[in-house]
């Protein structure tokens, strides 16, 4: 009966579960107060944002064309990639125009680059991509993978990070988060200075002006995209907004949902390469527009999953995520939205992720763009049942049982006995508290009544 996520959750150490639970709870508890401090009616803000994203998806072609046009006018070069391997080829080629094997490339945190496994692709070809977001930097040193969309090392504590830094040769040994962070800052300064290329994602690409909006708290993203002479921005084709005024809703919604802030420390508008009157910034800027399975769902019941702004609120609220942590999902996209996106993006084969949910709906309640995640999980389960996916419970046998009254009555009598022994019925009841029974057997009462 146990799914992959269940099995993983059993192997997770208590330290990790504690870290993940504590951080998730903090974020979820803080979300509503944060949004209510800024918006008079956060629910109105969510509906508004959801409708804008519907508008984007309904008019995607026109908006993409408008974005491309404006970007070209601004001096940004625009590239289109059908899938991960095309995107990697394009990015590698662009890197090689300014960097030789062994040269440093700095990277800011980007889910799009993780989904295409860009780092591995570049490393295989002799380039050196360095993650500059603190959490991603630790992950890279550890050869680990991130366990959360927004806070990649939610599963680690300070001692583990200290160990990683010690093994990487940083000194002196310290377990203070403050000192560890400053060690990272010191180390990465040199990399920013020597980097030939900076790679980032895009939070919102504005169709009306062609500006690419990137948000962050640390400053590594602005550094990565300003210090090197070449900037490559990678975006999923759905990450658009029609106009800059839409940011007045999206920026506080994203910051509030992701980190309980009113605004992230830095909101960076990338317009294009260095102009004659500017004294710094990259001399060439590229935008890579990535499909990788997204256009396949534009006309399906999963279309609304493309509204996702990658805030991570659904992860923070999800009881399954808190138990298993992001690694339990076995995919680049974890948590509730991950269970929906993973089959879509990269065409991951059917897993039991859609079944690893209690359908409690906490994710849908906190989603800033109101993605109906539980409905989508049900639809995915339905599709799994239609295919050759073998369900863990023999529902066809159960159906036969319910249609034969003598068998059904017998099973009602046997069930209280069967759950005392190991086997499927007890797995069902082990984690559930049955209400206590009062009164007589209903059937006998019904038959006996006057």
């Amino acid at each position, binding site marked *: 009966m146990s799914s992959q996520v269940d099995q993983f959750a059993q192997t997770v150490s208590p330290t990790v579960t504690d870290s993940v639970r504590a951080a998730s709870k903090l974020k979820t508890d803080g979300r509503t107060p944060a949004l209510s401090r800024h918006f008079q009616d956060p629910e*109105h803000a969510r509906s508004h944002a959801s409708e804008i994203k519907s508008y984007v998806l309904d*008019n995607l072609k026109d908006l993409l064309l408008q974005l491309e046009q404006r970007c070209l006018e601004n001096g940004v070069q625009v590239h289109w990639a059908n899938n991960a391997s095309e995107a990697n080829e394009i990015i590698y080629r662009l890197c090689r125009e300014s960097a030789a094997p062994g040269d440093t490339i700095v990277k800011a945190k980007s889910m799009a680059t993780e989904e295409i496994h860009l780092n591995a692709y570049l490393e295989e070809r002799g380039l050196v991509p360095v993650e500059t977001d603190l959490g991603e930097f630790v992950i890279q040193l550890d050869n680990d993978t991130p366990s959360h969309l927004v806070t990649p090392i939610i599963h680690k*504590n300070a001692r583990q990070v200290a160990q990683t830094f010690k093994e990487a040769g940083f000194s002196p040994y310290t377990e203070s988060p403050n000192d560890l*962070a400053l060690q990272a*800052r010191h180390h990465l300064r040199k990399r920013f200075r020597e980097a030939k290329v900076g790679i980032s994602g895009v939070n919102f690409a504005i169709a009306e002006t062609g500006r690419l909006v990137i948000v962050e708290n640390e400053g590594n993203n602005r550094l990565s995209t300003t210090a090197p002479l070449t900037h490559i921005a990678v975006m999923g084709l759905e990450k658009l907004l029609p106009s800059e005024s839409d940011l007045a809703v999206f920026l506080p919604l994203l910051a509030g949902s992701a980190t309980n802030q009113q605004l992230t420390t830095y909101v960076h508008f990338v317009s294009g390469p260095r102009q004659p009157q500017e*004294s710094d910034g990259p001399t060439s800027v590229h935008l890579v527009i990535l499909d990788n399975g997204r*256009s396949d769902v534009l006309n399906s019941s999963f279309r609304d999953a493309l509204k996702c702004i990658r805030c991570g609120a659904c992860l923070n609220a999800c009881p399954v995520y808190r138990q298993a942590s992001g690694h339990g999902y076995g995919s680049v996209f974890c948590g509730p939205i991950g269970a929906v996106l993973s089959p879509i993006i990269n065409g991951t084969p059917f897993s039991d992720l859609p079944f690893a949910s209690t359908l409690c709906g906490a994710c849908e309640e906190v989603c800033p763009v109101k993605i109906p995640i539980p409905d989508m999980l049900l639809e995915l389960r339905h599709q799994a049942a239609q295919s050759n996916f073998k369900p863990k419970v023999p529902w066809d046998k159960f159906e036969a049982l319910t249609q034969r009254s003598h068998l059904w009555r017998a099973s009602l009598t046997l069930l209280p006995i069967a759950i005392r022994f190991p086997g499927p019925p007890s797995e069902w009841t082990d984690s559930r508290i049955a209400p206590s029974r009062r009164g007589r057997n209903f059937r006998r009462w019904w038959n006996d009544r006057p």
Partner: protein
Amino acid sequence: MTARERILACAPSTGQSMPRPTVFPRTCFDGADLWEAFRSKLVELGAEPIDLKDFKADQTVYVEPAARPFTELKSTAPLWKAEVGISLADFAIAETGSLIVTTMLGQERLSTLLPPVNLVIVHRIVPTLFEALSQLPPGNVAIITGPSRTADIEGKLVRGVHGPGRLLVVTQEEE
């Protein structure tokens, strides 16, 4: 068929203007004294409102050309080595405690990023984020709200990774 052609062929287009929501969600900002509201936001964010005459530059300083008319200080170090970067903002946002910074007059983007202390001078203020966005200058722009921060390690707040850990703001209100 190129990737571009394929993607555009799959993407929907409604042909007519779909109605976009028109009633903008209201924010809580009541807009009384804008500069006062701005300064309290700065403090909440861990930024420091200061008076330029109280600022002692006993550290190596890099002064942006745009900011030079406002301060007697001269650059004593190149940008990558300076301990303090002095920049000029286009305007401030009272609602969020933010500063709009551009590359006006050749101002380097990195001066609000590299030095561990960033001192920003600002004269003009708008009430809300919504208004700020309608007045945003074109080109490469940054909205800066407080000093650099991260909570990646155990959720504990650390300032100054990788941008400036101290943000000093000089508000010189226009008469």
